[in-house]
Every structure is written in C-alpha cells, then in structure tokens.
C-alpha cells in the first residue's frame, strides 16, 4: 500500500494577532467571505465605521479656530507627553472595550503603513473597505462621541468644527470612497446651523451626525431651524448612539458588557421617543433620520410600547395622525450593527417591522469589538436577494444620493 503524500503547510504570518498586525491579515477571512458571496458585483455601503481620531489629535487641534484655545491645545500636546487628548471628556468604558486585550484591533491599529502620500487613516480605511467588501465607508470619530456631555459647550463647538475641517482636508480630499457625516455641536444650536451652512455640498460630506450621548431634548424649539436647514439640503440627519457612565440611569451598571448593551441603545430610544411623540416626522416630512449603532432589536420594542400608550393618550401627542410605529417605519432609517442575530425568528420579525427592505442600512462599526461583516446580511435565510442588496448598499445609495456602481477591489 502506498504511503500518503505528506504535505508541507505554510505558516501564517501572524501566529498571534495583536495591535501591530496588518488589518488586511486580521480581516483576511472577511475578504474570503466577501469573495465567496460575489460581493464584487454588489454595491456595499458601510454607514458606520470608525477611526481613532485621538491618534491624530495633535493635528486636529491645529484646526481649532479660536487662536488662544488652539495655542493652549498645541502647547499641551507638545509639552505634556502621554497626557490625554486636549479638551476631550471621554469615558471610563473606553479602557474596557477590548476585554483586557482579547480583541486587540479595538485597542489600536498600529500596523505598518508605508504610503506617506495620504494620511495614515486613509490607508487604514482603504484596507478595511477592500477587506470587508465595501465600496463607500462612512467614517465616524470615537472618543468625540462623548462631547455632548462636555461641561463646556464651547469645547464641543471648537473641537467639532476643528475635527470637521481636519476630516475634509486629510481624509475626504484623498479618496472619493470615504464619506462623512459632519459632526454637529448640537448643544449650541446656532453653531450646529453654522456647520450645516458651511459644509453642505462639500466633497465627501453626505449628511450630519449628532452624537446621541447627551441630555438635550431633540424636540426643543431651539432646534427647529436646524432641522429645517438640514431638510432643505436633502441630506440625512443621524443620531449616533453611545453609552456614558455619567448617565444617572445607568450608574448602577457595573459590568461593561451591561453598559455597552444598554448604553448604546438607551440614548437613541430616548431621542427617538421624543422625536416621534413631538411630531418631528410631521413637521419635517422630508427630513431623513437615521438611528445609528444601537442595533435594531430596540426598534420593535419601542414601536410596540409607543403604539400601546399612544392609543390611550393621543391628546399628549396631537401631531400624530398615524401610529408611532408607522412613523418609525416610514420616516426613520436604521443601521444594522450590532445586529442581534442569535434568534433568527426574532430578527425576521424585527426586519419586517422596521421595513428593512427600504429602511435598513448596513454598518460594520469596524474596528470596534462588535463589528459586523456584510455576510451577516447575505447569509440571512429569509430575505430576497433584492432586499439584501438594498440593505447592503442600495438603500444608502438612495438616501445619500450615491452612485451605486461597485468600485471596491476584492
């Protein structure tokens, strides 16, 4: 009997993935998954991915308009090596995201980048897009998402405006595939309006972002001109969720797991409740609102709760001519991530209730610990191919007015 031929395996370049591993190696299996599903021919938009803006914070602060604050920030970063980023408030949870190093890409992408012709974050974003199978990636900041709770509202203005300018010059100008929702310093409405005025129509800016972690009432009269202006641009307004341990309602939660599970849904649940019950969809019928990074399981919960209560107390929400859930279904959009997919029956019901065919937008949240791949959508057994294509990119193409031609290199 012949002896079997013995093969010689090839050792993988990264035996243990750490923060220095090339993200193309980390995501190699994602690329294989995308190729297997022929995503080269699908238009895929990732409506919520992140970069870590604080890595470039010494650059960002140079865009602060106030000359005194700008100098203070520059000197701080020059003289205080190892100090936290100037002006940011942050949150304890930022230290816990990687579960003690178990998920290294959450702690940092310190891989080698040779191309110095563009900002390092452009290269990292391109690597992520081509690994995940994404044509357009919307890039969000990370620690800046807590600025809504900053004790100095003017700091939110200075830093949001500086960041928006830095983003335009360093990332958006370098690659048409990178998109951005300009960050609104929402605690100062007139400054938020100024951002809309200055950025509408600028390259790569396809909408506006309000970091949801804040205690501002979204229905307050002081915001009506802002919404009207955004409605007029035709671009969407998004609420990007985030937890914060200083939220009194979450202060007893002692595990980050619990904080993350509740904290990323809670602010959007609160804001969406106010948005609907105060009749924003009636007052701004053409304004497209996107609820980002809260997953989607919260939406059917809120739809059912609001419908149930509304019918008993319609006089408290006199703007509404239909059920709250109908406004949530027809006037709101949702991003997928982190898509709760352990119970497919529940997920199918959720997608049906939010009318995923037209209202759901794929998001990866890369490089965060709970990132999702496009295959989470392509592999769902109960959706038609057209619905999957809609969720992965065509719904985004419609609301962001994007050219739905696939351009990625898988």
């Amino acid at each position, binding site marked *: 009997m012949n002896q079997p031929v013995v093969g010689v395996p*090839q*050792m*993988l370049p990264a035996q243990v*993935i750490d923060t220095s591993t090339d993200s193309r190696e980390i995501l190699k299996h994602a690329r294989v*998954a995308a190729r297997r599903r022929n995503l080269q021919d699908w238009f895929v938009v990732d409506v919520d991915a992140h970069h870590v803006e604080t890595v470039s914070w010494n650059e960002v602060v140079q865009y602060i308009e106030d000359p005194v604050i700008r100098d203070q920030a520059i000197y701080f970063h020059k003289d205080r090596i190892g100090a936290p980023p100037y002006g940011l408030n942050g949150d304890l949870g930022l230290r816990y995201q990687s579960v003690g*190093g*178990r*998920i*290294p890409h959450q702690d940092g992408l310190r891989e080698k980048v040779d191309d110095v012709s563009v900002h390092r974050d452009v290269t990292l974003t391109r690597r992520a897009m081509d690994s995940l199978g994404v044509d357009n990636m919307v890039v969000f900041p990370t620690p800046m998402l807590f600025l809504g709770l900053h004790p100095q509202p003017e700091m939110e203005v200075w830093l949001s405006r500086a960041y928006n300018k830095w983003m335009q010059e360093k990332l958006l100008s370098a690659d048409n595939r990178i998109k951005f929702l300009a960050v609104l310093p929402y605690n100062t409405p007139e400054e938020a309006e100024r951002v809309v005025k200055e950025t509408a129509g600028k390259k790569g800016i396809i909408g506006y972002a309000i970091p949801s972690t804040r205690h501002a009432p979204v229905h307050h009269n002081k915001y009506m001109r802002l919404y009207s202006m955004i409605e007029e641009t035709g671009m969407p307004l998004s609420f990007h969720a985030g937890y914060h341990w200083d939220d009194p309602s979450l202060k007893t939660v002692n595990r980050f797991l619990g904080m993350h599970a509740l904290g990323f849904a809670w602010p959007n649940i609160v804001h969406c409740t106010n948005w609907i019950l105060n009749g924003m969809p009636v007052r701004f019928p053409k304004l497209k609102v996107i609820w980002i990074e809260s997953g989607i399981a919260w939406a059917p919960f809120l739809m059912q709760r609001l419908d149930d209560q509304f019918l008993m107390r319609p006089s408290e929400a006199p703007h509404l001519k239909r059920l709250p859930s109908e406004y949530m279904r027809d006037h709101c959009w949702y991003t997928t991530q982190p898509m709760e997919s352990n119970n497919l029956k529940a997920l199918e019901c959720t997608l049906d209730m939010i009318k995923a065919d037209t209202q759901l937008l794929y998001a990866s949240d890369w490089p965060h610990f*709970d990132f999702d791949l496009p295959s989470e959508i392509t592999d769902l057994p109960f959706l038609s191919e057209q619905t999957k294509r809609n969720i992965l990119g065509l719904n985004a193409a419609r609301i962001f007015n994007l050219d739905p031609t696939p351009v990625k290199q898988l």
Partner: protein
Amino acid sequence: MPKPYLVCRSDELKDGDRRVMSCDGTEVGVFKVDGQFVAWHNECPHRSGPVCQGRMYKRVLEPIDSDGHVRALAYDENVTNIVCSWHGYEFDLKTGANQGTDKIKLRKVKLEEKDGHIYVVV
C-alpha cells in the same frame, strides 16, 4: 481525500505554544496545552474569524464566599481559553467548547503524533 501535513517535531512545541498554518488553503491551529496536543480549524463558529490566531487566557471565574458575597475575580488555572480576536468568543482550548454556550464549538482537526513528529490530517 484527507492528506497529512507535517507540522513540526513534537518537542518543538512547549506548553502554550502554537503553530497556525495553511494546509493548501485550509487554515489550522495546533496547540500544546497542559502537555496535550490539540488541533482546530482556524475558523470561529461565530463569524469565521481567525480564532486560532487569538490570544490565550486562563478562564475567568468569580468565586462566591460562604456569605454569598463576591470580592474579586480569579483565574481558573485548569482551563485555558483561546479567544477569537474578532469578537472575543472564548473557547476551552482542550475541548473546543464555548464558554457561554455548549451549542457552539470549535471544529476539530485530526491530529497524529508519529515518530516524534506532529501531523494534521485535512
């Protein structure tokens, strides 16, 4: 047809060591843990992440004292977990069982030790 691949000499791997490799496109991780060799497919059952390239940690416990109180976390020195770097799914390196549910397991690879060498069959 399954084919054997030569991984390395048995004595090259010390406890805690690993070899993660591609066997003509099939990725496999071979580990030595508590004196025992194990081999798993480098594909997390969660979302196909590169689980064998993850970091290893002793399993985390939270001891409860006789009053029902907890004071500190602890490591179970008898259980080594491999953690998928993509999303943090943790698996007992020896059994392949997921820490959170016994419905999720790593996929085993046939491993042979012969004449002082380790082979995987894929």
